[in-house]
């Protein structure tokens, strides 16, 4: 057991737990932020993607100890009212089907656009190819990223 302190969506949070607990479960089960999704548990699918100091990480394989002292942004903290340009683009293109993976898709897209405000197809593929969607919403994800880039 150890004490971890980090900033989550602009709020300072502390948690006493074992350092190998993945950030995903700390967020979901201890910090009441279930918008970050569990799906593969192995860092394969990207449904659990969050920002750790502006970098997209797989929270299901990121030990809490790696987040200690860092800034974590989850889907709940992306914007106060759901109007971040990536969220707006997602709605404009009506991307989601079941929607379960979409928080991870959106966080991965946010990280991409922070690094590359006008990504070409290769850059979109590189950033998004490892974020899986069983419903197959990829075509609209691609369109939404292009739209967010244009409107950014």
């Amino acid at each position: 057991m150890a004490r971890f302190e980090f900033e989550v969506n602009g709020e300072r949070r502390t948690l006493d737990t074992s350092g190998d607990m993945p950030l995903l479960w700390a967020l979901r089960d201890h910090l009441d932020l279930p918008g970050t999704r569990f799906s593969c548990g192995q860092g394969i699918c990207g449904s659990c993607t969050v920002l750790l100091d502006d970098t997209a990480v797989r929270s299901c394989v990121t030990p809490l100890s790696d987040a200690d002292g860092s800034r974590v942004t989850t889907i709940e903290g992306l914007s106060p009212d759901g109007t971040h340009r990536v969220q707006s683009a997602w709605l404009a293109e009506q991307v989601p089907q079941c929607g379960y993976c979409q928080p991870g898709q959106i966080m991965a897209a946010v990280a991409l656009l922070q690094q590359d405000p006008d990504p070409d197809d290769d850059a979109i593929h590189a950033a998004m190819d490892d974020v899986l969607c069983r419903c197959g919403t990829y075509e609209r994800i691609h369109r939404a990223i292009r739209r967010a880039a244009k409107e950014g």
Partner: protein
Amino acid sequence: MVAIRKIGRREFLQRTGMATGGLVLGVALLDSVDATDAVAADTFQPNVFVAIDTDGRITVWVSRTDMGQGTRTGMPMILAEELEVRLDDVTIVQADGDEKYGHQLTGGSLSVRLMWDPLRQAGATARTMLIRAAARLGDVAPGSCRARDGRVLHWNSDREWAYGDLVETAATLDVPSEDEVELKDPATYRLIGESLDRIDGPDIVTGRARYGMDIRRSGMRYAAVARCPVYGGRRPQEFDPSPAMRIDGVERVFGIDGLHDGLYVADGIAVIARDTWSALRGAEALEIAWQEGDDADASTEQLHETFRRLVDERGEVLREDGDVDGALGNAARTLEATYELPFLAHAPMEPMNCTIDLRGDRCEIWTPTQNPQTVRERVARLLGFDTSQVTVHVTLVGGGFGRRLYPDMELEAARIASEVDGPVQVVWSREEDMRHDRYRPASLHRLRGGVDADGVPTALHWHILNTHRGVFRSDEFPSHQFPNLRVEYTHVPWVLPRGAWRSTVHSQNPFVAQCFLDELGHAGGMDPMELRLRMLSEHPRPRGDGDPPFDPDRMLRVVEEVADRSNWGRSVDDGHGRGIGFSYCYDSYVAEVLDLHVEDGRPKIDAVTAVVDCGRVINPDLVRSQFEGGVVFALSATMMQEITVEKGRVQQGNFGDFPMMRLSETPTVTTHILENENRPGGIGEVPIPPTMPALGNAHFMATGERLRRVPLFA
């Protein structure tokens, strides 16, 4: 509460045709909606689907599950259309599992097909009563009033009444009979046919949407289960719980019995913990000496050997037209081919889970199910309860595809809850989800076909060997199109439990039939599109055949349209190929042309052109999104997915060895909807059957190589 009824609810529903008419079979509604339905006082609720309060707030109950197909948007659109309100003014409530809502099994692409009549009737009945209330208040004739945007307007004066002001009066009126209620003229539709945004969109993109995994109850514990890796295996009476108990956060470890009846729930060891992580780690840490049972040596390799051995024996003849053996003997050319299709997992992104609170004589369940009434009945039976003691809340569903039609996870959760005080959430790891699925069956198909001197197919002998029963509908393609046809079937029972998988048998037979048709066309020197158009126009399946009745003109028109829209006749570069597939299923007619090219020996799917006639369309964008996603789902299966078994164990466990398509691999999908006024057909499963053979046929055109073992590019 305002006294809102002078007749019983059952009578209302009989009068409105919901209990007996249309497609709603087996609707058995409560005699009344009582206060336990949590309807506020002073509320006008003429039926189980809609209520309006005195502030004009409109609540619509969605009785079917949304797993991404947009049911929670499409269903309220139908009711709101007839009620003459805007969709923005409607609050939706997900209905619990209860027979008062009629049929609630979300499968078979049924939601719009089943609910089209009852939801229109429910909205129109409420509208009619509100107009009558206004007429009474204004002392005018109902015929001089009309409803629009949540108000009733009087034609001959400026007077108008908001719905909220009419509620108390409306609630005192008799519910009109069905023939007193006039449905809207479709020409005046303002919502139906519009691409309105998904109601759940804003919650999904902000993370506020709540799936089964996201349910949180005060004092809730988390559970994971180690299950016997071999189907039908049993847990030992004794085991060592200490590897799990040593893990921080684990509170209890105990064995649970499965169900070894037709449903099948695995025996397991449950680990109860203060969070999901501890529970999952605890279950992983256990080393259990399972009694693996009779199937500990089963392998899919053996199964396919069995298929190959049995294919030469006679099967049960499902269809026999003309003289197949004679026609094959007289054919100018004959062909024989064998196709093999694997087991498939559903692999929804949200793993199986269930939250349950069993206290005393009450059981409350929150679950992402496609089938809440069955959950309620089965859990009640397991606990020795009456169904009225069990409440099943349906959450948003993170992908279903047929997996969540089965109540195994809720029954397992009920076993666990019997040992735990207070609420508990049972979560399956991805590996447990994939290894304890109910799989799309495996099959082997041998086809022998013949063409005449003009290249026209004349005979087909098709032997289907399948691990599941009920694999061929005697009216499905290519019945009627071959003058000489024999379809034989051999059931090869096997250890893996079978599940409905998006489009069920239509994920198997159309691939085989439409690929082999191309093989015959190639043997006879006929263009694949030309061959299909000829078969459909010269030997159409009879009009009115089957249930629902088949319309050969609609099928032909869809194929003609896809030829046109895809510019089928255009020249194709070396290394490129195009393929076609078509299907009639779930009351919808569909055809697709798929374009690909081969790059470094691997196919790259460039585009899919889809044409669908699904009757009247509620929301065209929902149809288009189902095609975009359905194509990806079908291509993932046909290109790269399979479930294999060795030593009785499913070998795949995660998205690494059960892969799916990625963004860069996704084709552009263009969907053309042939609008018409036929009854709405299904959509959720419809894109799957034509995509699979279109891929195989396109690959053949590009490479000259006919691939007959699925997955084609594993």
